[in-house]
């Protein structure tokens, strides 16, 4: 039996850290990287007698997310206590939401794969709820003891739970990437995965193709990069298939992914699962969200990637692929829109090509974010305009781009003028160059006349070279054929 006889079922739980200035239930700062326990208030360290007060900003971000995915934003949701003991959980319970979460339902459309085989899919979300993060246990540098850092304790999280709608690691990664882009797009999370601002848990199971029941799932905890997400799922899927094909059974369990070995290993089985004894937190009133609040958040919502993508296709004639790529992140979309607004809508397509092509490649090579691009949208727009009006060829344009990248000119025009890169369109000048080339390459001329089309291309190349790339290839082509009487 092969892998193709099995269907993979994946659901993701994502913890997105909300980018509020202060914590979800205290006034302490959420800034990353402070000295241990310097950003832990009396509430965060759970002194006797302290009480939580809900941060409105965290709620507002949850509303924004709910509206962005077309979910139901609950008029009434309830905070509950999840009880368990751990040294980095100061109260002995985590304040979370259980029966009545703030966001219910919603969907996210993902695009999976590339080129011809790419397809779109809509993933349903179960819910998203507000909760507080725990602190950190530091097991190193304490000579056998454990250090506790409570700076992160009380940091607001939105736990976003999907339905088990994904059928491959590629779909899971596409979903995670789309969600990651969305939370940054609507400015509720900085998405910094190294700092743990966006963490994924993957629920993975397999079943025989055609089966109607889900298989037993195992949950892979705390995947903090898309690569690890893919690797962990791929390993886990193969392990589950191998286990089942060997006649084994899958036990429900929580597992950890080890990036060094690329394997998942069991953390705890279902039998060890905590009874968290959830109950409504009596220190907090039910969270009531009035329709007016929702309406205000809706009014302040930026244009969402889906709508923007549609607009790029309808108004500017971009392909689905281009529109998807250009709306993959807010920064790219902003850069692209700024470029088009400088160049004019008629040049939207070449602008798209440049943003996705030369610019993306150059940024990638330099490991730079688009927001830090040395070439500004206005500079890129100026460059695209000069290609469009035939001032320069595409080949020369790459030189101009490189010059702009290196700060050798403030505008494309300045670079073109300074370096004398203006395209030669004067027929007489080009014909003169052709005459020289034909005189110097009699052998090629003869070959061409003998029927070798290749020889023609060689002659075109020689003319282009003689023009230092400034002649238009199409024009050279036409004039050369005329000269040769072909």
């Amino acid at each position, binding site marked *: 039996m092969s892998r193709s006889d099995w269907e993979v079922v994946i659901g993701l739980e994502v913890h997105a850290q909300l980018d509020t200035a202060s914590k979800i239930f205290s006034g302490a700062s959420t800034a990353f990287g402070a000295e241990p326990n310097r950003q832990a208030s*009396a509430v965060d*360290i*759970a*002194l*006797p*007698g*302290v*009480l*939580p*007060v*809900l941060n409105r900003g965290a709620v507002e971000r949850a509303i924004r997310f709910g509206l962005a995915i077309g979910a139901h934003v609950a008029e009434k949701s309830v905070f509950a*206590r999840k*009880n368990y*003991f751990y*040294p980095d959980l*100061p*109260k*002995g*319970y985590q304040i979370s939401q259980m029966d009545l979460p703030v966001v219910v339902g919603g969907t996210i459309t993902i695009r999976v794969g590339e080129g011809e085989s790419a397809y779109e899919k809509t993933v349903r979300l179960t819910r998203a709820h507000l909760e507080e993060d725990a602190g950190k246990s530091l097991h190193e540098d304490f000579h056998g003891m454990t250090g*506790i850092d409570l700076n992160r304790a009380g940091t607001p999280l939105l736990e976003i739970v999907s339905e088990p709608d994904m059928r491959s690691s590629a779909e899971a990664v596409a979903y995670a990437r789309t969600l990651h882009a969305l939370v940054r797009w609507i400015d509720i999370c900085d998405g910094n995965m190294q700092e743990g601002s966006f963490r994924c848990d993957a629920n993975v199971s397999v079943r025989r193709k055609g089966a109607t029941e889900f298989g037993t799932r195992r949950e892979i905890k705390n995947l903090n990069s898309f690569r690890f997400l893919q690797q962990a799922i791929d390993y886990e899927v193969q392990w589950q298939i191998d286990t089942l094909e060997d006649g084994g059974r899958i036990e429900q369990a929580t597992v950890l992914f080890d990036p060094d070995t690329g394997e998942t290993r069991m953390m705890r089985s279902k039998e060890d699962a905590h*009874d968290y*004894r*959830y*109950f409504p937190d*009596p*220190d*907090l*009133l039910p969270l009531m969200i009035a329709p007016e609040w929702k309406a205000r958040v809706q009014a302040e919502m930026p244009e969402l990637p889906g709508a923007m993508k549609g607009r790029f296709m309808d108004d500017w004639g971009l392909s689905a692929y281009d529109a998807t790529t250009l709306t993959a992140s807010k920064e790219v979309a902003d850069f692209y829109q700024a470029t088009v607004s400088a160049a004019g809508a008629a040049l939207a397509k070449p602008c798209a090509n440049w943003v996705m092509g030369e610019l993306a490649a150059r940024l990638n090579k330099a490991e730079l974010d688009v927001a830090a691009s040395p070439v500004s949208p206005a500079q890129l727009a100026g460059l695209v305009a000069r290609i469009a009006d035939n001032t320069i060829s595409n080949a020369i344009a790459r030189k101009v781009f490189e010059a702009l990248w290196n700060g050798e000119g403030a505008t494309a025009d300045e670079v073109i003028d300074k370096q004398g890169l203006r395209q030669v369109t004067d027929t007489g000048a080009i014909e003169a160059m052709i005459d020289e080339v034909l005189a110097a390459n009699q052998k090629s001329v003869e070959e061409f006349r003998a029927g070798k089309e290749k020889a023609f291309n060689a002659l075109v190349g020689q003319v282009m070279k003689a023009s230092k790339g400034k002649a238009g290839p199409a024009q050279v082509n036409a004039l050369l054929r005329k000269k040769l009487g072909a």
Partner: protein
Amino acid sequence: MINASLPELRRALDARQISAVELAGLFLDRIDALNPALNAFITVDREGALAAARAADARIAAGSAGPLTGIPLAHKDVFCTEGVLTTCGSKMLANFVSPYDAHVVSLLEAAGAVSLGKANMDEFAMGSSNESSYFGAVKNPWNLGRIPGGSSGGSAAAVAARLAPIATGTDTGGSVRQPAAYCGITGIKPTYGLVSRYGMIAYASSLDQGGAFGASAEDCALLLGAMTGFDARDSTSLERPTEDYAAALAGPACARPLEGLRIGLPREFFAEGMSDDVRAAVEAAVEQYRVLGATTVEVSLPNAKLAIPAYYVIAPAECSSNLSRFDGVRYGHRAADYGDLADMYAKSRAEGFGAEVKRRILVGTYVLSHGYYDAYYLQAQRLRRLIAQDFQAALQHCDLIAGPTTPTTAWTLGEKADDPVQMYLSDIYTIAVNLAGLPGLSHPVGFGADGLPVGLQLIGDYFAESRLLHAAHRFQHATDWHARRPACAA
């Protein structure tokens, strides 16, 4: 001076007949003399008290004194006090010096009141006799062989024995009203949400409410007025204007000042269960209210009998979670020797908590467990709603509800120590009021066969504190039960 009312102390301080320092010294000396026998205080803060008294004297001299400036008081040791030991009556916090003040403590400090120290209490406010304190039982000033009630037993005993003129307390199931009754003083628990819980170490968050003890309704009114007020740090704090309870005491100076007041007598509270001497004193007090012009009407609270079972699900459930923070990791007791993490938790908590606290943590953990939650916790919440509805129905027919505060007078130390259920039943009349979140007041109305005080409980609708205090004040104007003192304060 030790038996003076708050208005009398105010006049004496303002007239410079006594300084705040002298007044504090007077009570501190009484504490030194009597506390060894009563055990009403866990911590006496002589230096802090004298410093606060000096500041109060300065305020009085500057002419900016308020009603409580220079008035000594005791804080139940459930309230966090910055720089002062805050134990909550537990070994777990026997070494805990709070780095911050509870909201109530801040308010009273700002009012110029002088804190003498921290009053003994049942461990984590769990108990009805003050015998569960890690710091030993408190004795009833009327009879040192009797319990003072709980959980605010130290506060009640301190006021009854005049170790302090007034004291703060907390009431989760009767912990202000029951010890007030047993110690022959007045105590009020306001509507849930009026007194901020910030800095008040939580027992059962949905039931806990700060309250006031005094010799009279008038003293309670002055103290309560300074304790209430919205606090943004407590999400259950009510955002409404503060009331001048003392001003509300003024009433018609006539023979029948309570003319028109309808008092409801719950059939269930006057049925069996109450001892004969308590019944006699309570019925005489009701008759006195009629003499003052009130009319009485029988009402019914059919679900009140379910209050104790509902309470002993909800309160332990909340406490099992509230007390999880006492894990020996960051503050409080940590076992000296332990193996791994689980062992550290188990030993620290086994050593740090007393038997009653452990019992309630276990009960609470059980009722919240998977598979039991619906049958216990949710069912108890349903009962809670029914009980609250009963009160609303009864209050359609009356302005106040009156009945005994407790079924008997204070019992002998140790008598119910091995029978928690008998102990729980002593709160049968008070617990329903917490479940409904209503205000309740107890004031002394006589003595039982054993010479121990009997209390009458008045219950009002939400925010009826002024009405409760006014009725009790009128009663006290016409009678002198509240002026009786135990021998040690005579």
